[in-house]
Each structure stands twice: as structure tokens, then as C-alpha cells.
């Protein structure tokens, strides 16, 4: 809700606007008990922000030019000028109107003031007493230029004629949409004079005044726009006569109201409702109210801003909190789903655990034990399994007599089992000798490892010492028999046999000794050694 006061020299009109429309109107007399009535009235709406429009005879307007300077200097200059021109009133204002087209291109300024502050002060005291938030005091004449803009009355020279509550007529002159002059004339009709003739006389007089100030050239024409109610139109229209330098345009206040969206339209020709409606459409700057006068409004705005900010903070934080809570809600739902999945997984785990075969030990123990068994124990070879296929081969070599066999399970294919050479009772007539004069040993003696590594038993290695019965001195036959035996063993699946010691070692590096008696036996049994390796391919 907003409150507007339209102050003339005789009447004070209070207009209340709500949602852009004037909803209430009340008038008070300026003289007499009007002030008291107004104070009582205003006390009932002391919180409503207030604006005052002045339409007073004491308003003065003066044109000036000032050098074009910076904003701060201009402000100081205008303040000084205003205090010089209107030294007796605080209600003064300078209106910048652009720059001159030629010369120094000075700034054009119009000064306006309410030269008699007392006409305003009585009302402002009431406003101050009631701490009403006064937002501004506006000159209706200055503001009336908005009406020309809104009604598209854009002429080079326009004289806007309006009527004020309290029977007065305001003439405001605009050149190129800039206010240059304004005058308020009381409507005090003489005998035989009508409102129309008065308007004609006053506007002609104003034209003459403006012309004397060289506002017009010979070709210029002043467009006089008169805002009237249809009830007054007939009385006015007949009295107005256009001529070359002056043309009248009657603005029907109802049509104007319709164009501006003012509902309901004013009931008479006074312009205060149109002005207030225009202000609701287009805000205008404050003209006369000082900062001190407007402090309640400033504080009210600050209070409103603080309250709105507080509300915005609370709303934003609630929204943020709500968003967080919604996330929590989503997370909680997801948690519930996870918990259900977790329960299902745990149930399945427990079922599996219960169903696991148990022998009083952990599963890993069972697994390790089985792994060790499969890898190292199962299928571990036995000496019998090694000898059985060997025996079959030996049966087909009846001349071969086994003396000893040293067998070993190992992961090293080059390993050599320990074997002690058996002393032979029958020495063949020819034998190889080592450098020391002894028969070459099957293998150098070595200490047995007391704690050998237990492996996967990939190989079985055996040294087989045996003799072969052949005719005396038939070393070639003996060697051939041994070679055949080795070959036969090598044909067994997985077996390989090498002659480690031949019946007669004919290596050039060894000494060879022969002892032949006059009478020799019919046969001989030279000794030999085979190295037999069995690879266990299928061992796990």
C-alpha cells in the first residue's frame, strides 16, 4: 500500500494506492481544522510510505547554464547556486537538462523551489511527528512531463494545462520535452468570463511571455494541451480559437485515464489522480525532500531489506537443509537396500559355512594338507615300482648278474646316488686302471645330506652295478651285451640308461692292464655300471 498527498494552496488530497491502483481518496482543507483532521487521519496509516506532490503557486522555476564540470564539482556548484537563488527555503531542486549545442557547451539547468516553505512545513511537521516514512516530495509541474511522454504528445513546444484541486490552473511549458516554465493561476472568474475564455486569455498571455523570452521563432507553434473532463469540455472548447502560433488540443481526462489504465477515471478535470497513476507507472526522483526528512523511509526500507534478507536467509537455509535431508532420505533408502543385501549375503555365507565339510580343522588347513599331499606324497615313487620293469628287461639278459643297485628319488636329473664299488672275485684278464693304479671307481665318495629338501620327486635315478658272463677275452661281446641291455632299458617308457662303466674302459686317458696266464678259464664276468634315470612325467 502506498500513500500520496497532492498539496495545493487550498486543498490537500490524500490518495491511497494498492497493487498499482488508487483505492481511496480523501480531501482536507489547507486552512482551518484541515490539519488536525489530516493528523488524525494520517495516524491511522503512519506505517504506510508517503509521497507528496506539490502543485503550489509558490513554486518558482528558473533556467540557467553552468560550466560542464565533474559530478562532484557540479553537485557543489548546484548546491551553491540553489542556496543563492532560493536562500529562504529548504525545498529546492536543480534539474539537469543536457548541454548547450554551441559555445562552451555548458550544462543546461532548471532550478525549482517552493519559495514559501511554510505551506509545506505544517504538513511535514505532522508527518515527522507521526514518524511517517516520507519517501519524497515531488513537483507536480516537473513530473507532468511524464504525461506528455505516456500520451505521445511529443511536440517541439508544448504547453500542458492542468487543473488542480482547489480551483487553480497550471500551465507548464515544455520545449523539446524539457520543462522550461510553469505557472499556477487561481481560477477566479470575473463577471461574464467563462473557464474557456479564461484559459484562452491565460494561455495567450503565457505565449506572449514565452515569446518575449525568445522561446519561439516565427515558424514555431505552441501546442496547448488541456486536460479536461468531458463535463467541462463544452464550456472550454467553444472559447478556444487556434491561430498560427497557437493550437489547442483538448485531452479528455476519461480517454487519458483509459489510455493510462487508470480505473476508475477521475470524476472532474483535476489532474491529481492522473499524476499519481503516472507515478505508479514511472517512478521519478525526489525533488524537495531532504535526507533528514526521508530518514523514516530510509530506515523503513532498511528494515524491510533486513527482514527480507533474514527471510531469504532462512528460506535458503531451509531449502539447503531440505536438500540435505532429501539426500539423507535417499541415502537412508539406499542404506536399507544395502542392509538387506548384506543380510542376504551373510545368510548365504553362514549357510555355506555350515555346509562346509569339517574335520575339526580350518578350511585353509584342509586345503594346505591336500595340496601338500597331492603335490608331494601322492604318487611318490617306490623302489619296487622302479625295479619291476627293470627286472623284466634283466630276465631277457640271462648273462647279466646284478650285484647292487643304488636308487634315489630326486628333482635333479643329474643327481648320482651313492654306491660302494663291490670288489670282484674274478678279475678279467684286461682291465682299465686309474692313475693311482686302482680300478676306476663308479663315483667319487661323498657325504649324504642329513636333511635333504623334500621335492616333487620328478626323477628316479639309480646306479646299477652288474657283471656280464661272456667267453674269456670276449670284451667286444661283453661291451655289446651291456650296450644292448642299456638300450633295452631305454625302451621302457620313461626310462633312460647310460653305461657309466663299461666292461672294459678303452678311454685313451686311462691306463689299461692285461694279465694273461698260460691256462685261462673258459669264460669271464667283467663288471659294468649303468646309470638309469626314470622321469616321472605324470607326477603332480
Amino acid at each position, binding site marked *: 500500500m502506498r500513500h500520496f498527498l497532492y498539496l495545493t494552496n487550498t486543498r490537500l488530497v490524500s490518495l491511497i494506492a494498492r497493487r498499482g491502483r488508487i483505492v481511496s481518496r480523501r480531501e482536507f482543507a489547507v486552512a482551518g481544522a484541515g490539519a488536525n483532521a489530516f493528523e488524525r487521519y494520517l495516524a491511522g496509516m503512519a506505517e504506510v510510505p508517503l509521497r507528496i506532490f506539490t502543485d503550489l503557486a509558490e513554486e518558482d522555476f528558473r533556467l540557467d547554464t553552468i560550466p560542464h564540470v565533474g559530478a562532484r564539482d557540479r553537485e557543489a556548484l548546484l548546491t551553491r547556486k540553489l542556496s543563492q537563488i532560493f536562500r529562504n527555503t529548504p525545498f529546492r531542486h536543480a534539474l539537469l537538462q543536457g548541454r548547450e549545442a554551441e559555445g562552451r557547451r555548458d550544462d543546461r539547468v532548471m532550478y525549482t523551489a517552493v519559495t514559501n516553505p511554510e505551506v509545506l512545513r505544517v504538513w511535514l511537521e505532522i508527518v515527522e511527528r507521526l514518524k511517517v516514512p516520507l519517501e519524497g516530495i515531488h513537483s507536480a509541474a516537473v513530473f507532468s512531463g511524464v504525461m506528455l511522454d505516456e500520451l505521445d504528445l511529443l511536440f517541439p513546444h508544448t504547453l500542458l494545462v492542468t487543473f488542480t484541486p482547489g480551483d487553480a490552473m497550471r500551465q507548464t511549458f515544455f520545449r523539446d520535452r524539457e520543462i522550461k516554465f510553469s505557472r499556477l493561476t487561481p481560477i477566479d472568474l470575473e463577471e461574464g468570463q467563462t473557464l474557456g475564455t479564461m484559459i484562452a486569455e491565460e494561455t495567450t498571455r503565457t505565449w506572449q511571455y514565452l515569446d518575449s523570452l525568445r522561446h519561439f521563432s516565427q515558424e514555431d507553434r505552441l501546442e496547448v494541451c488541456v486536460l479536461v473532463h468531458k463535463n467541462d469540455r463544452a464550456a472550454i472548447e467553444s472559447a478556444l480559437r487556434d491561430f498560427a502560433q497557437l493550437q489547442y488540443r483538448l485531452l479528455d481526462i476519461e480517454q487519458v485515464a483509459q489510455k493510462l489504465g487508470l480505473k476508475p477515471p477521475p470524476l472532474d478535470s483535476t489532474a491529481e489522480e492522473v499524476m499519481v497513476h503516472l507515478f505508479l507507472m514511472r517512478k521519478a526522483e525526489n525533488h524537495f525532500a531532504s*535526507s533528514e526528512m526521508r*530518514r523514516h523511509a*530510509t*530506515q523503513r526500507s*532498511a*528494515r524491510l531489506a*533486513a*527482514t527480507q*534478507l*533474514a527471510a531469504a*536467509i*532462512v528460506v535458503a*537455509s531451509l531449502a*539447503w537443509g531440505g536438500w*540435505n535431508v532429501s*539426500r*539423507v532420505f535417499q541415502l537412508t533408502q539406499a*542404506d536399507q537396500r*544395502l542392509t538387506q543385501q*548384506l543380510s542376504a*549375503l*551373510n545368510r548365504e*555365507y553362514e549357510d*555355506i559355512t555350515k555346509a*562346509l*565339510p569339517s*574335520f575339526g*580343522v*580350518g*578350511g*585353509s*588347513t*584342509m*586345503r*594346505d*594338507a591336500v595340496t601338500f*599331499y*597331492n603335490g*608331494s*606324497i601322492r604318487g*611318490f615313487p*617306490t*623302489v*619296487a615300482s622302479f625295479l619291476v620293469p627293470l627286472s623284466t628287461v634283466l630276465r631277457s639278459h640271462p648273462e647279466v648278474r646284478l650285484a647292487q*643297485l*643304488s*636308487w634315489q*628319488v630326486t*628333482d635333479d636329473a643329474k643327481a648320482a*646316488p*651313492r654306491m*660302494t664299488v*663291490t670288489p670282484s*672275485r674274478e678279475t678279467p684278464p684286461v682291465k682299465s686302471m686309474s692313475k693311482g693304479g686302482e680300478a676306476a671307481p663308479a663315483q667319487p665318495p661323498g657325504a*649324504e645330506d*642329513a*636333511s635333504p*629338501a*623334500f*621335492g616333487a620327486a620328478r626323477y628316479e635315478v639309480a646306479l646299477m652295478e652288474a657283471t656280464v658272463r661272456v667267453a674269456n677275452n670276449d670284451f667286444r661281446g661283453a661291451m655289446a651285451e651291456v650296450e644292448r641291455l642299456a638300450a633295452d632299458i631305454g625302451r621302457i617308457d620313461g626310462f633312460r640308461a647310460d653305461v657309466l662303466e663299461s666292461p672294459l674302459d678303452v678311454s685313451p686317458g686311462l691306463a689299461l692292464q692285461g694279465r694273461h696266464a698260460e691256462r685261462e678259464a673258459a669264460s669271464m664276468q667283467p663288471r659294468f655300471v649303468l646309470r638309469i634315470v626314470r622321469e616321472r612325467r605324470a607326477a603332480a
Partner: protein
Amino acid sequence: MNHVFSAEGFRTMRVSWALLILALVAGAAIIGASHWYAQQEKRDSADSGRRLQEARARLDNARRERDSLQESADVFRTLVDRGLLQGERRLELVELVNTLRARHQIALDYEIAPQRALALAGGRVFASVDVLASRVKLKARALHEGDLLAFVDALATNPQGFYPIDRCAMRRIEVAAAETLQPRVEADCTLESITLKEKRGAR
């Protein structure tokens, strides 16, 4: 704005200032508390997710273990029956050797070394069991190599215990008088008496 931040302005607007401060405090509290609550729930949710992952992993392990154990359960039952996990039973070993010796009519000397951790090829170790073994050396003499082989084979394949023989040297004993009743063959064999011991905390 001088009228707002003046003493009079503060006095006039004290309710508004208080309201604004209250709103700021309340807003901060609402945002802070809800953010903390949301973060807490987020952490809880992350924990739940982690627990779920752990449960899945544990279940997968259990499934694999179930499949693995079902395959090896029969084998393990046999191992348990053969006393692999029951500690070394030297008395049973002594009795077994005596029984077999008598059955196969062989003369026998043997020596059982102190039990030790069996070193496995490649330095392999098991997480849940220790492999222990006692090295046994046998020196046997028999009239016929068949008796000797039967004794060794019976020992190696005995249904109780694990006695893998890894070395064996057999040789013929030359005798002067062929008609006399004395051992004609002898054997030096070594074997391992193997047992497993479950490690502490393996269950």
C-alpha cells in the same frame, strides 16, 4: 544510509538487526547441522557399501572354498584316517617295522632321527600347516631280494602313516659257502616319517 547506521537508526532497527542476526545464526545452524547429518549419512552409506563389498568378497571366498573343499574333502578324510594331522607316532612306527621285519624274515637295523621341519623344494611353505618329518635310516639283510623288496614296499605303502622312501641301495652279499643259510642281500634305505601340524590361528 547515515540514518540507518546512526545511533537512532540502530535503535529504530534493533528488532530488524536482531532478526537478521537470528536468521543468520539459524541459517548457519540449519545448513551446518543438515550438512553434518548428510555427511554422516554419506559416511555411513560408504561404510555400508564397504561392508557389502567385504561381505561379497567373503562370500565369494566361501564359495570358492566350498567348491575347493568339496573336491578335497575325500582326500582329506583319507589323510586324517592315515594320521597325517595326528602328530608323529613313533611307537606305531616301531611296531610296524617289527611286524614287517618278522613277516618278511629280515634282519634289520634302523635309526630314527629327531623330528624336524621338512624343507620343501623351492623353499615352499604353507600358510596353515607346518610339514614335519623324521628321517629314518634302515639297514636290512635278507636271504632273498624279494623279501627285502617286499619289506621296503610294505613300509612305503603302509595304510597308516606316510613313509616315502627316497633312497635305497641294495647289494648282493657274496658268501663263501653257497649252501649256508645266511643273508644274501642287504639294503640301505632312508625314508621320511611325515606328519603335518596345523599352525596356530589357522582356523
